[in-house]
């Protein structure tokens, strides 16, 4: 008896006995944006807010103060942070191999990001040291994410081009949500119910 692998591949070759030709893929769609940097950031903010993320904007020198303000407004006592996060924050517990149950006990998480997509209001995490394991941005109910202006692209193709598929990636567009009840969007199911973005420019 041949293996399932050989048999499935054999079936495919027989199914393609008419030798269909792979078409040339027409790439006439937009592969980059045309907005100037300021408009690109404004678009990102607009799209984040539209999908119920909270947004604060600040300059690099104001960043740490802004993070403090966000955490204190939220009232977090303990937050988890990835090992490579550049800022010292109050109540920070560094993820050095915490269990999911440990992370379930904290009040929030603070990370950086890899890329942000203005047109879709999306933030992408790539598990770099300042973003950490995927679990720490999932289990807590509050995610505070720092986005630098140079990480913001306008379109999805520009984001895909910047990312490395060999890193585990998480694309995040607003807080956890569902449309499963009468197809109306409700924010807040299993992931963080509050997403706050600090845009640094």
């Amino acid at each position: 008896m041949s293996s399932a692998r050989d048999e499935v591949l054999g079936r495919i070759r027989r199914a393609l006995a008419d030798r269909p030709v792979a078409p040339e893929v027409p790439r006439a769609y937009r592969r980059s944006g045309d907005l100037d940097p300021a408009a690109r950031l404004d678009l990102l903010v607009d799209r984040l807010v539209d999908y119920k993320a909270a947004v604060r904007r600040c300059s690099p020198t104001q960043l740490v103060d802004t993070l403090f303000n966000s955490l204190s407004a939220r009232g977090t006592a303990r937050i988890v942070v990835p090992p490579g996060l550049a800022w010292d924050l109050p109540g920070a517990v560094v993820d050095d191999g915490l269990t999911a149950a440990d992370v379930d006990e904290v009040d929030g998480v603070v990370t950086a990001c890899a890329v942000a997509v203005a047109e879709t209001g999306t933030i992408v995490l790539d598990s770099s040291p300042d973003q950490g394991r995927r679990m720490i941005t999932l289990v807590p109910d509050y995610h505070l994410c720092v986005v630098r202006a140079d990480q913001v692209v306008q379109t999805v193709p520009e984001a895909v081009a910047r990312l490395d598929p060999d890193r585990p990636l998480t694309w995040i567009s607003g807080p956890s949500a569902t449309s499963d009840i009468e197809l109306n969007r409700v924010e807040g199911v299993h992931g963080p119910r509050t997403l706050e973005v600090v845009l640094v420019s």
Partner: protein
Amino acid sequence: MTQTFLGLPRAVDTEHLRGQPFPVAARAAVADSQLRRNLGNATATIRAKRARVVGEVPDWEALRSAGAAIKDSVLANLDELLVQLESEVTRRGGTVHWARDAAEANAIVTSLVRATGAHEVVKVKSMATQEIGLNEALAAAGIAAWETDLAELIVQLGHDKPSHILVPAIHRNRAEIREIFLREMAAVGLPAPADLSDSPAALADAARRHLRRKFLDARVAISGANFAVASTGTLSVVESEGNGRMCITLPRTLISVMGIEKLVPTWADLEVFLQLLPRSSTGERMNPYTSMWSGAVEGQEFHLVLLDNGRTAVLSDPSGRAALRCIRCSACLNVCPVYERTGGHAYGSVYPGPIGAVLSPQLTGVAENPTLPFASSLCGACYDACPVAIDIPTMLVHLRSQAPHPAAERAVMRSVAYAMGSPRRWTAVLSASRAGRLLGGRRGRIRALPPPLSGWTASRDLPVPPAEGFRDWWTRTHGGPTTPSLPSPGPTGSDVAGPGASGQRRGGSGGARTGVDPAEAAGGSGPGGAGPAAAGAEGGGE
């Protein structure tokens, strides 16, 4: 057009791919006014959302063309791309398994779960695992599978069946969901709070609490895959709630079951589908969460099960294989006037709606699923909405030609063809048909015809033939037939006279098709009559 299918096996275990004949199931569904209200509200909501976010993309048609071409290139090179995917996943620490059919896939997954010693698994919503009945197979092996998508949870707790590709509980409204949670949650985990309201936010919160412990304790998760990138071995799961991330991230062992067609060749190809899928599916610019991973990551054990289960048989039909482009967005369901009225259960398959009407019969063989190709009014809304431009109406007609037609229908069609073969015979038929006026009721409608024509009047009235037909009127007002001078007989090549002349005068082209009520009447009925579908469709498109 006849097809030889090269003996490629169809799906054998068809329990989840076919049900009652569509007209029978649809009749019951359209009689359920609560169901029709739920569906009408939900599909109207999602249609409006989709239209808005598709409208804001200036290059939507270019994305559709690219999406269709990428998927066609996958199908043309499917063997090489699967081997490449296998090698890239393996190189990154994953293990790839191949399954010829549902039973083999279920056996692979069951043995993988057993090897971990776990007695329960958490699941991300996945069409492939529904198609193969994985939950039932695991249950038979003493393994509990918890569905974690909110809609799947509603279906599982309600001992119900999914009725939509994206929103399996679309047929339930909030009051019904509240009832199910209050009644069922306690038996399988954390109960719903006694004072649970029916607001969607409260219901979502109840699901969050109910599932959290299961996520934190789970040792094995089972997912499907939206896309797999052959060149990088990357899998991708697109979701909203975070239940997918929980399953993909937390358990030590991750098993993904994927149909062999869900590939894209290169990493860059994702840039097309990450735009097409969310906007077509939930009507969002982007879904809340998309996870991507290549091989085994973050200390996990990763298994990928590649599933045929009839897909190679679909691939073998050049006129049907484009159904394998499908990315399971469900846009075609939401725009379909038939789906909107019958809901998904009437299709009897985990793949309902227009795509289900072409995919399910191809997976099982049309003989096993003969009524689904007729579950459509051929209005074409599905083709317009499809992000990978699957020409579903043409495919439906192609599959109808493979379905067995009842002897009575064939006899009627032969008679009509004979009658229309000469103007003299046709005139005689038209004169004779005037006797049909005697069947008319008070409002000039024929409500029941004797067999074999009863299939037509079972679900709709027929207008009585007019006292004077067009050809009589033409003869009376224009002084005689005009047959000899016709410049072009029209597309059917028939020499039906009068209407052709009329078309010529008005500069129109559809002449030869006018005035053929009896033929249209006979041609519309499929096996068992597509009655309720066509009846439902009449009010569609507003």
